[in-house]
Structures are given as structure tokens and as C-alpha cells.
């Protein structure tokens, strides 16, 4: 039943994409309906899949080796739940955000349907060929969505970079699947023979999986494609890409890990280290951004880092036999997959709402929007509190589990050095959390509070109802997971057992009980205190903000997002030196001067692009051989043949 429903959901998504291509308006109007129906069907199937037994659905297929077999087990259903939810919410949002009279309306709807349909297929594919094929469809659909505004050069560049990076990852994944096939003699996801993790084949699988899934999930230093692609795509597409597309990489890690009986310590260590680097540098780079969507994109890297370091702690703990710590870490990482999907989508949608109203992604051209757009402001605030991992919302619950696993390592700690790394997780996570808080106070404060910094912002209007409605389920889910995490505990324990067989139960419901009661108490107490302070402050008079003697508060005198972040960014300037363009020397009567500073990406702009430029320059040395004279080519071919013949005769 669950597999059939699941397939129906996927099919409805694809149908919505096809409907967008049919001529005439009526079919185009059906697309959101198909998407919402697909989302509801899919969510029902996931609910069944996470509570019931695994179900398989096999359909006829032509490609040799492949089989159209989908299996909805707890792990697939768990990862697919946010996909269905985000796809439905995104489609409703797009109805007004990317209205039908826009030139690319059909383009966006068609590829959005195909993208989401392929995404859920990747998650449930029981056959490795189907898995790769569906993933390729995801990549291509996402490429076209990123390139939606292809008249814009930055969009085109981001899209090409995304396509190139994705295909490099794909090559590695082909190799992974090939090695899996070589070890199991089957194209299905089957458990590998015991002890293979220590053999060269096993090691190669781990290394290639790290590279391939690392690129797909945007783990540092493989994140080069991510910020640009997230910034260029329409907001609801960014929500899906950041919320769930990058999670496919995490799903891939977990699926592959679940096939092994043991995982080498080195793999867990690598994940842990890369996770910590991604989380700290991701958030530090996010702080330095001026573009709202790029800022959110770097936070995706940060959160992927948190998830991956949770996985790393889990793998290390399991390798050292600390079963309950491993269970806690896996549960935390898995729950963070959901949570990040929810709050990041909420943030991207509310960012889309801001962009819709102000026509700019520059944080420093907005301001004071909370008065003009109260609902969008509330949605962004909920997302911001959740992503900072603050009680009483959902981000806190998953981070708490990862913290507990990391600090819990103290009781089980042996002399092995890899344990030392586990200790590093808690302080790193604390730093990440505090920096994320700074970043979101900056974003929320600069966009929604204070005075408007531009004409557009001053006259912004609240977004249409459809856009606001789309954010409601996401905000409610953030609040529900934060306030009643114990209800999720059985599902998490079940999925954890699927992901990492052989773990003892961590007693999650018991672990989360205390945090849950504090969360509820916080909400109640803050509500009471807010009521009291509002009543007490009702005897009030209004006046302009006191600005130390200046007559009026000038919008330009406000702290901007950049100035707010500057004091922290300067602490991290050793890792990410900013490019500053300032007037060197001003003449006696300065006419016009400009100042600008931006922080380039340390991997893409400082390492990869210079390296590529260098390689291109070296490659020009080989140009002499490419003179365009056919005789010369024939001579070279002949010579090569002779050399090969001689070599084979030796």
C-alpha cells in the first residue's frame, strides 16, 4: 500500500510538470493541484512507511540491468517526508511568486514537477541503475531551474558550475555503484559481504562515496557549486534545493554505510573533521554575505556540516562499541535532516516574499519590513530562531542530541586518539550556534527592523495570500517538533536502526523529555511576561528613537548588516580575507568615491578558479600540436600506432 501511494505521489509530481507543457491556460492551472495532491498522497505513504513494514513495488522497465523497483522502507520514507512537504508548499508559493504571466512560468513549473518527482524516486530506488538515472534527472531539472533567469550572466555561470560539479560527483557515484555490483553481483542495494570494509574494494567505495556524496551534499571543501546555485534559482526552487536536494547526499552516505557491517574509523574521522570545518567556516562565510540568498546558502553548508559531524560521531562511537552514543548521534543527525529541510525552506520562502516585495536580494537595501509585512516577518523570525538551534523550536532538539552524543563520549572515552575528535564537536557546535545566532540577528534586524533604507522597502507590500499560506505548514512543523519531540522518538529510533543496524536503543523519548518540558515552559513563561510588560508599558508616549542629540533618526545612520557582521568577520579574517576596494587617496576636493568589500569563497575563488586558470595556461603549451593541418594529424596517428605496435610486440 505504502509503495503504491508513494509511486502515485511521484507520478502526480511528474504529471504536474507535464501539464505545464500542455498548450493553453487550463492545463497550466492544474499544476499546483497535481503538486498538492501528490504531496498529500506522498506524505500518507511516508507515514505508513515509517510505521509499517517495508513495501516494494516492481514495474516493468526496458533498460538492461535496471529494474523499476521502488522500496519504501523507514529510511526512504523518512527522507522523502520533507521532499513531499516542501514540494507541495513550494508549488503553492510559486503560484503567486512566479505568476502565470511571467515568460518562464511554464519552464519553472515543468522542471519543478520533474525535479520533485525524480527526487522521491531517488530516495525509494531499490535498484542502483534506477537510483543513478533518477539522480541524473534531478541534476538536469535542477540545472534548468537554476538557469531560469538565463538572460542574467551570473545565473548562467552558476548553472554551468552546478552542472559540472554534479557530473564530477556523478562519475564518482558510477564508480561506487560499479564497485557495489562487483562485490554483491547484484544491481540491488544489498548488504556487502562481511569484512569488505578493510579490503581495497571497501576502501575505494568509502573514498569515492565521500567525494561523490560530498559534492552532492555541499560539504566543504566540495561546496563550490552551492552558494551560486541557491542564489540564482527562484526562491521556492532554492527552498527545495537547499532543503532536500542536498540531503540526497546525506541519504547516499547513510544508504551506503548501512550496507557495511563495519565502517573504518578513518571514514568516521574524515566525516567528523569535514563536518566541523563545514559548520564553522560555513557560518563564518554566511556572516560575511550581503546577498540574502547567498547568506542562506552558506547556512546550508553549515547545517550539512552539523549533520555530517553527527554522522561522524555516530560512526566513531559505533566503531568504539559505544552503542547508545552512536544511536544518539545518528538520531540527532537524522532529525537535523528534517529540521534543516523545514526551517531552511521556511527561510527561503520568506526571503522570496521579501524579494517579491522589494525586488532586491541586497540585505542593506531593505529595512523596517516588519511593519509593512508582519506575516513574512513572523515566518522569517520562526525560521531564524529554529536555525539558530534555540529552544523552543525544532533546530534545538536535533542539536541537543548531537551535543549529548558528543559530551556523552566522556563516559565511554578510551585512550584512542579518534575520541579526542569527538570532544571537539561540542565546542565547535557551540561556536557555530553562536555565530549562526549573530548572523540571523543581523539578517532579521537589517531586513525587518529599524527604518527602511530604500524607497522600495519603504513602500513594500505584504505578499499575496498563497505565498503566506505556503509558509504555514513549515512554520507549524518547526514549532511542533520543538514543542513535542518525544512524539517523534519512536520514528527516529526505528529509522536509526535501519540506518545503522545493531545499535541499542538510546531511550530517546526519555532523553528528550526534559528538553520538551523546558521548551513548553519557555513558551508559556515568555507569553506571560510579554503580556505583563505590554500591560505595564501601556502608559506610554511615543517619540523618535533617541539618537544622542540628532534631530531625526536617519535611515542611513543605522547599523547595516555589513557593519553588524564586521566585528565578527574581522575575527575570522585569517580564514577568509575580504576583498576591499576603497579610494586610495582623496584629492583636496573629493568628487566621488566608492567603497566596497566582499568576502570571496575560500575554495572556489581562492583555490579552484586560480588553479583552473593555471591549468588552462599550461594547456596552451600543447597548442602547437593543434595547428589544423590534416597531414600533421595523420602523421601523429601513424606514429602513435607504430609506437603501440612496437610496445605490444615487446
Amino acid at each position, binding site marked *: 500500500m505504502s509503495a503504491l501511494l508513494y509511486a502515485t505521489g511521484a507520478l502526480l509530481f511528474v504529471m504536474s510538470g507535464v501539464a505545464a507543457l500542455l498548450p493553453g491556460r487550463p492545463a497550466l492551472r492544474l499544476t499546483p493541484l497535481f503538486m498538492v495532491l501528490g504531496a498529500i498522497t506522498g506524505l500518507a505513504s511516508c507515514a505508513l512507511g515509517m510505521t509499517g513494514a517495508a513495501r516494494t513495488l516492481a514495474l516493468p522497465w526496458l533498460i538492461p540491468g535496471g529494474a523499476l523497483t521502488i522500496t519504501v522502507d523507514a529510511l526512504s520514507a523518512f527522507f522523502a517526508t520533507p521532499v513531499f512537504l516542501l514540494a507541495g508548499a513550494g508549488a503553492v508559493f510559486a503560484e503567486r511568486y512566479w505568476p502565470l504571466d511571467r515568460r518562464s512560468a511554464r519552464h519553472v513549473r515543468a522542471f519543478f514537477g520533474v525535479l520533485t518527482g525524480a527526487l522521491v524516486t531517488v530516495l525509494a530506488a531499490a535498484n542502483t541503475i534506477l537510483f543513478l538515472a533518477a539522480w541524473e534527472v534531478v541534476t538536469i531539472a535542477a540545472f534548468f531551474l537554476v538557469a531560469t533567469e538565463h538572460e542574467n550572466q551570473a545565473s548562467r555561470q552558476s548553472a554551468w558550475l552546478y552542472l559540472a560539479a554534479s557530473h564530477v560527483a556523478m562519475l564518482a557515484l558510477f564508480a561506487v555503484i560499479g564497485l557495489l555490483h562487483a562485490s554483491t553481483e547484484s544491481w540491488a542495494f544489498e548488504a556487502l559481504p562481511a569484512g569488505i570494509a578493510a579490503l581495497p574494494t571497501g576502501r575505494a567505495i568509502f573514498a569515492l562515496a565521500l567525494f561523490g556524496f560530498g559534492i552532492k551534499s555541499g560539504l566543504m571543501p566540495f561546496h563550490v557549486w552551492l552558494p551560486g546555485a541557491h542564489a540564482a534559482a527562484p526562491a521556492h526552487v532554492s527552498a527545495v534545493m537547499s532543503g532536500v536536494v542536498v540531503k540526497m547526499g546525506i541519504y547516499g552516505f547513510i544508504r551506503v554505510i548501512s550496507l557495511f557491517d563495519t565502517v573504518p574509523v578513518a571514514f568516521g574521522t574524515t566525516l567528523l573533521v569535514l563536518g566541523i570545518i563545514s559548520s564553522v567556516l560555513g557560518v563564518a562565510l554566511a556572516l560575511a554575505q550581503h546577498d540574502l540568498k547567498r547568506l542562506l546558502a552558506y547556512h546550508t553548508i553549515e547545517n550539512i556540516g552539523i549533520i555530517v559531524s553527527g554522522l561522524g560521531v555516530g560512526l566513531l562511537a559505533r566503531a568504539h562499541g559505544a552503542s547508545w552514543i552512536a544511536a544518539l548521534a545518528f538520531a540527532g543527525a537524522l532529525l537535523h535532516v528534517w529540521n534543516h529541510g523545514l526551517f531552511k525552506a521556511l527561510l527561503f520562502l520568506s526571503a522570496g516574499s521579501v524579494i517579491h516585495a522589494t525586488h532586491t536580494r541586497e540585505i542593506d537595501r531593505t529595512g523596517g519590513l516588519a511593519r509593512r509585512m508582519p506575516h513574512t516577518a513572523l515566518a522569517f523570525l520562526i525560521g531564524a530562531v529554529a536555525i539558530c538551534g534555540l529552544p523552543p523550536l525544532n533546530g534545538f532538539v536535533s542539536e541537543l542530541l548531537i551535543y549529548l552524543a558528543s559530551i556523552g563520549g566522556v563516559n565511554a572515552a578510551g585512550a584512542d586518539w579518534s575520541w579526542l575528535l569527538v570532544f571537539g564537536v561540542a565546542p565547535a557546535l557551540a561556536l557555530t550556534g553562536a555565530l549562526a545566532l549573530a548572523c540571523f540577528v*543581523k539578517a532579521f534586524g537589517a531586513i525587518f527592523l529599524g527604518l527602511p533604507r530604500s524607497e522600495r522597502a519603504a513602500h513594500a507590500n505584504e505578499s499575496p495570500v498563497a505565498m503566506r499560506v505556503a509558509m504555514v505548514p513549515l512554520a507549524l512543523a518547526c514549532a511542533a517538533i520543538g514543542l513535542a519531540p518525544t512524539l517523534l522518538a519512536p520514528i527516529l529510533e526505528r529509522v536509526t536502526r535501519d540506518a545503522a543496524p545493531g545499535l541499542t536503543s538510546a531511550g530517546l523519548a526519555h532523553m528528550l523529555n526534559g528538553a520538551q518540558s523546558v521548551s513548553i515552559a519557555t513558551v508559556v513563561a515568555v507569553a506571560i511576561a510579554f503580556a505583563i510588560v505590554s500591560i505595564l508599558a501601556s502608559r506610554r508616549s511615543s517619540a523618535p528613537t533617541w539618537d544622542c542629540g540628532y534631530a531625526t533618526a536617519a535611515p542611513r545612520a543605522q547599523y547595516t548588516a555589513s557593519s553588524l557582521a564586521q566585528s565578527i568577520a574581522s575575527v575570522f579574517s585569517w580564514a577568509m580575507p575580504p576583498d576591499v576596494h576603497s579610494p586610495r587617496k582623496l584629492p583636496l576636493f573629493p568628487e566621488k568615491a566608492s567603497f566596497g568589500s566582499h568576502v570571496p569563497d575560500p575554495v572556489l575563488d581562492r583555490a579552484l578558479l586560480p588553479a583552473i586558470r593555471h591549468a588552462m595556461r599550461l594547456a596552451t603549451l600543447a597548442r602547437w600540436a593543434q595547428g589544423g593541418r590534416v597531414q600533421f594529424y595523420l602523421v601523429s596517428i601513424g606514429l602513435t600506432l607504430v609506437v603501440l605496435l612496437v610496445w605490444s610486440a615487446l
Partner: protein
Amino acid sequence: MRGLAQLLLVLVASPLLLGVINRTKAIMAGRRGQPLFQAYWDIAKLFRKGSVISLTTTWIFLLGPAVAIVVPLLASLMLPLAAPRAPIAFTGDVIVFVYLFALSRFCTTAAALDTGSAFEGMGAARELTFAALAEPALFFGFLALARVSGGISLTSFMTMDGSHWRSASAALVLVIASWFLVLLAENSRVPFDDPNTHLELTMIHEVMVLDHSGPAFGFILWGAAMKLFVYCALIVGVILPTSGSPLVDLPAILGGVLLVGVVIGLVESGMARLRLVRVPQLLVTASLVAGFAVVLVLR
């Protein structure tokens, strides 16, 4: 019931701590100083006053003070002040404790930005920067104490029986030194911030609440006093061994908290504020010191 009594205790006792600090500073400076109970009168006066609220603000402006008073109260419930167990105690409550204060920081800095004033933005930026650097120090301390006490809960950290001083004294000294720096930074005391310099560009906490007035400012003042009390109690609880009898432990902890107040007063009398560029360095030092403590207990 026990929880309610503890809440009342924190609510009532915390402004006294401000009085003790001020009295210490006055004595050191050879002045008579303000009355010991001045903070109580200040808060009472603020609650009777009307307020002036900036035209640019939204509801966030009042959310800040509401959260600022609720968070220290909730956090104080996780401290075992009088009994072998805190009113709220569970594995991982240390993390909830830190993140509650983070929630408070989010709301107070957002409330500061709500006014659109450059001064309050400046204060918010500094608060956010310094708190981010102080956080790892707190967590390194938690790791060390978790290893020493065998539990991940404030109750287990603060109710050790004294044998920890024999087994891990060096690590404890390092943790306490580091946490004292965190206490000074988080509660905006000298050398990180000067609570007395009103309206100067060098301030952090005071400048953030420039536009709050009347009852809302009263909430902030009281909340700040309780936050200071909670941090002092945390450090005293780690230092003092527990007897298990509330009749001994409660006076010991309260006495210890007031003593920490005296020490803060002595620090403030003895040194000036650091230059702002030096502050991150001192906080990183605090983290490193606590990090050494972890290395010591892991050995």
C-alpha cells in the same frame, strides 16, 4: 513547590548582588557608596513609571525584556541551590541552560536593532561577537566537568562531594578561571564592559538598552541581576562540595555568590576596561584555558 521557593529566592536575592558589588567598589574607592538595597528601589521606581517607546519599533521591542527576565528564572531552576537535586534536572540540561541564554541574546539584540539607532546596533554587534567567542569556553568546561563528575547535568556538576578536588584539582582551577572570565563577559562587567559608563561608544550592554524605559527597563535590569546571580551560583556550586543537607548547602551557596560579588567588585576597582580589540583575545584565552582542563582530565 521546591521550584517555586527557588524562583522566589532568585527573584528576591539577585538585586542584592548588585548592591554588594557597588558597595565593594565604593569601599575600595574610599567612598560611602549607595545603599546596599539601591537596586531594589531602582527596579521598584522603574515599574511605577510610564514609558517612552520609539516610533520605529515593533512588538519585538517589548519581546526582548520579556525574554530577558524569563530566561534567567528558567535557567535558575536547573541549579541545585538547596537540595541534592535541582527542580529541573535531566541529562543534557547544561545544553538547554546555555541555549536559553542564547535565546535571550537573540531577543535582546533584535530588540536593540528594532530602534534603528546606530548606537544600539553597535552594542548588539559587540554583544554578539563576544558571546560567540565565550561560548566554546563554557562548553570546554562542561566537557571537563562531565568527565570529572560522570554525568551531563548541572545537578551532577554542582553536587560533587569534594573528592573531585583531590582527583582533578588542576583541571577544576582552570575551568573556574575560564568560567569567571565568561561570567565577566556575559554579564558585561569590567574588563569587558563598564556598567557605569553610560552613553559612551565603548559600552556593550548599556548601549543596547538605551531606548528601553519604565517597566520594560525594569525587566531588563532585574533580568540582568538574575543572570549574574545564576552565573555566580554556577561557579560557586562547582567549587563547593555538597553536604546533602539543604540547611548547610543553601547558606553556603548564597554566601559564595555574595563572595563572588565582592571579587567582581575588587576586579572592577583594580582595573580599567580593556580596549575593544583586546576583548576577543582574552575570550579566546578563556577558551584555551578551559581546553587545557579537558586535556588534563582526558589524560
